């Protein structure tokens, strides 16, 4: 392991350890907030991998969040799965859905791909809304027995879900970091910087994109399953919400800095800060977010983290290769 | 000598961090043909792009009829009287032969050169007017590119690699049109790899090497050997 990677590994481990101990010193509301931040950080890092590295601008990631959530509910309610065991299964199902959609959507030229992912998400949502045994449009709740199966006391349950979110958030962060530093990551970076050249250098663009799309779909499904395990309720509108699971995530990444892992993290933190500040103004923060995203795209494509990097010349998560 | 029609003074330019031209100067007189020669990568195309404003250049580095045009936008130059026949022809593939000419005529200046007049100059184009421009042979495409420059009724045409990839016979055809073009009062800067040919055609010559002018003066002053030496940077 190189020195920089060692530093990152130690840093992440320390942060994870501190956050894992949070239940003993943080309040309930704080735990919920950190948990939510973790889930959004994971979604942001994943979307960034997709759009910022593989050049697949998806506005349909809500398909996999909802699918993951529904999958967990179905496993638990219909097949008596222990909720925690349903999480990997949710990833599997979401990944499989990704594998079905990818070959179709990859046929769409350029920016039409984005709209295609949206149609895919709408299609999945409509299918779930049409199934009466899943509560159709109204959705369903986790039965008390299943909730109890997570852990006996409410406090312990909340802690368990918190740890799960923490594990997923940090897992995605570490996993994507390792991926980008790996040989496959080199291909992804080449793809990001110059798709044509990457192709001529022997990077198989189609397959690289396919596996990225698939992996991101699976991980997004896992995140979705835990999000709804915490919420204990799911409906098509909540599960497949474009705003909650994709729009906000996109703006986080864009504002923080697309094509950089740090950008996704910084963007997540900025979003939560903004939300706390503007919480009294209803949906104003969505308008603010949209405007900020547009301004970033117009004037500083690499986002806030890009500015930091240029000004200070350092990065938190060095990824071996020089950029730009 | 009279005031030059087009003059380039101490022009430096390039692509991003890469500087390709270093203080290039040249003058094109009214009704004259200037030959621009140099090895591959010498900066000839770059010079044209800089003159046209496709690459950065300072305001007073390029003068036209005594006025600085360094801050004139590319798209306004054709109405001012400067057009280019780009390297590799660059015909619009969604437009037919006739439409390529029509477009340039509509966005250029009015005058004696019209698409019909081009069809007289190159009769083969008249027969193929409805065909997609890029379905023509290379030589025919070069004729369209030349025609596209003419119909703007310019004062100056910048010809980049006018005979690249064409059969010698076709090159003769294309060059046969030159005196006619010049006779209608159009001046030209001609980039050409065939040094001897351009020496005979042009009134004066400029030789570039690695982004710098290494030789310039009236064409008849130079022997072929001198030019070849300058060309290779010796």
């Amino acid at each position, binding site marked *: 392991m190189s020195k920089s990677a060692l530093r990152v590994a130690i840093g992440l481990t320390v942060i994870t350890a501190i956050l894992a101990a949070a239940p003993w010193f943080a309040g309930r509301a704080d735990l919920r907030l950190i948990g939510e931040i973790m889930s959004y950080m994971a979604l942001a890092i994943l979307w960034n991998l997709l*759009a910022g590295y593989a*050049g697949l*601008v998806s*506005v349909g990631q809500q398909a996999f969040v909802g699918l993951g959530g529904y999958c967990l509910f179905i496993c638990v309610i219909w097949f008596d799965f222990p909720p925690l065991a349903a999480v990997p299964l949710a990833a599997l199902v979401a990944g499989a859905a990704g594998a079905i959609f990818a070959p*179709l*959507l990859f046929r*769409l*030229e*350029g*920016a*039409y791909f*984005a*709209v*295609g992912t*949206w*149609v895919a998400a*709408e*299609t999945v949502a*409509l*299918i779930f*809304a*049409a199934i009466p045994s899943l509560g*159709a449009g109204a959705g369903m709740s986790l039965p008390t027995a299943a909730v109890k199966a997570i852990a006996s006391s409410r406090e312990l349950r909340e802690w368990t879900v918190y740890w799960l979110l923490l594990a997923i958030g940090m897992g995605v962060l570490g996993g994507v970091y390792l991926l980008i530093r790996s040989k496959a990551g080199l291909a992804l970076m080449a793809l990001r910087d110059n798709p044509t050249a990457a192709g001529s250098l022997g990077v198989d663009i189609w397959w690289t994109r396919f596996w990225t799309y698939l992996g991101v779909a699976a991980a997004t499904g896992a995140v979705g399953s835990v999000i709804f395990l915490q919420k204990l309720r799911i409906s098509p509108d909540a599960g497949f919400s*474009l705003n909650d699971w994709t*729009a906000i995530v*996109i*703006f986080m990444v864009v504002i923080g800095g*697309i094509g950089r892992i740090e950008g996704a993290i910084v963007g997540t933190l900025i979003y939560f800060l903004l939300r706390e500040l503007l919480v009294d103004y*209803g*949906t*104003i923060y969505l*308008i603010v*977010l*949209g*405007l900020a*995203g*547009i301004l970033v*795209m*117009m*004037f500083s494509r690499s986002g806030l983290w890009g500015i930091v990097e240029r000004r200070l010349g350092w990065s938190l998560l060095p990824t071996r290769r020089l950029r730009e | 000598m009279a005031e030059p029609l087009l003059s380039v003074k101490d022009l430096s330019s390039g692509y991003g961090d890469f500087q390709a031209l270093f203080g290039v100067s040249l003058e094109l007189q009214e009704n004259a043909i200037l030959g621009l020669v140099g090895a591959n990568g010498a900066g000839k195309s770059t010079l044209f792009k800089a003159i046209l404003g*496709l690459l950065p250049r300072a305001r007073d580095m390029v003068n036209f009829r005594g006025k600085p045009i360094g801050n004139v*936008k590319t*798209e306004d*130059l*054709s*109405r001012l009287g400067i*057009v*280019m026949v*780009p390297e590799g022809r*660059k015909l*619009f593939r*969604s*437009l037919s032969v006739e439409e390529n000419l*029509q*477009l*340039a005529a*509509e*966005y250029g200046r009015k005058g004696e050169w019209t698409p019909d007049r081009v069809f007289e100059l190159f009769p083969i184009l008249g027969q193929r007017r409805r065909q*997609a421009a890029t379905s023509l042979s290379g030589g025919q495409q070069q004729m369209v590119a030349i025609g*596209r420059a003419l119909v703007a009724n310019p004062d100056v045409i910048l010809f980049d690699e006018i005979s690249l990839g064409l059969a010698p016979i076709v090159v003769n055809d294309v060059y046969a049109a030159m005196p006619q073009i010049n006779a209608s009062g159009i001046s030209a800067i001609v980039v050409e790899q065939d040094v001897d040919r351009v020496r005979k055609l042009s009134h004066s010559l400029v030789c570039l090497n690695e982004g710098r002018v290494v030789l310039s003066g009236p064409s008849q002053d130079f022997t072929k050997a001198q030019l070849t030496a300058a060309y290779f940077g010796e």
Partner: protein
Amino acid sequence: MGIAEAIVQGVLLGGLYAIFAAGLSLVFGVMRLVNIAHGDFIVLAAYIALMVVSLTGLHPFASLLIVVPLMALIGYGLQRFVLERTLGEDLLPPILVTFGCAVIIQNALSALFSTDAQRLSAGSIETDSLQVAGLSIGVLPLLTFAIAVAIIAALEFVFFRSRIGRAFRATSDDPETAQIVGVSTKHVFGLAMALSFGVMAIAAVLLAARSSFDPFSGPARLIYGFEAVIIGGLGNLWGTLAGGIVLGIAQTLGAQISPSFQILAGHLVFFVVLALKPRGLFPRMD
């Protein structure tokens, strides 16, 4: 409602979808840009029409005299001052900028007008119908279809026969050379967007006269327009009309099976076409 009537209705509905699609397709054809906020701008135009009608008392169709130029102006400005800066090799910035526009329009409209459903009242034409061969055909859908055909014919003419159309095609082929020839590519892109927005305004009034809308009705309009484009085949406006018709029929037949199946049927047909004929049913021959 019988199958025959459902099919006729689907065909006519396809006309509306073709109008949604036409603006989308035009902009993609000229600058390879997909306006994710296409549907939201249609809804914005519908709200503008609503205001114009309530302020001036004009008939909704007459309000187009104001709404079309206004939308064209908005489109030109959006392209010249916002999107222009983001065009380039990288596809991402324009997608994200228009996506930002979508979110802003939706939330701004709901802040200004609430999320209540609105409707433009076009008078008796809304309910009038003709009896043809035992089928009842609505006058408004029929008119919409006729307008769709007229719009597509006009766009085809502009694109392939006019001076600005030549500039559109030339700029789309090679912007740098177009500039050398004397075309201001920024202006041309602005005009293409203006044209697209003008068509959106017409779509908006026709939509608002036949069904209610709210600030969040936009995305579905984008999606139907997009599906019509892909089903019909890129770069072919008449194909887009055919794509709209196929989508319309799929939806009305789907609704026959079950109301909840209407939209889904359209999506499924879209995916089937994508699987079997990825270049669309009527790809351009070149």
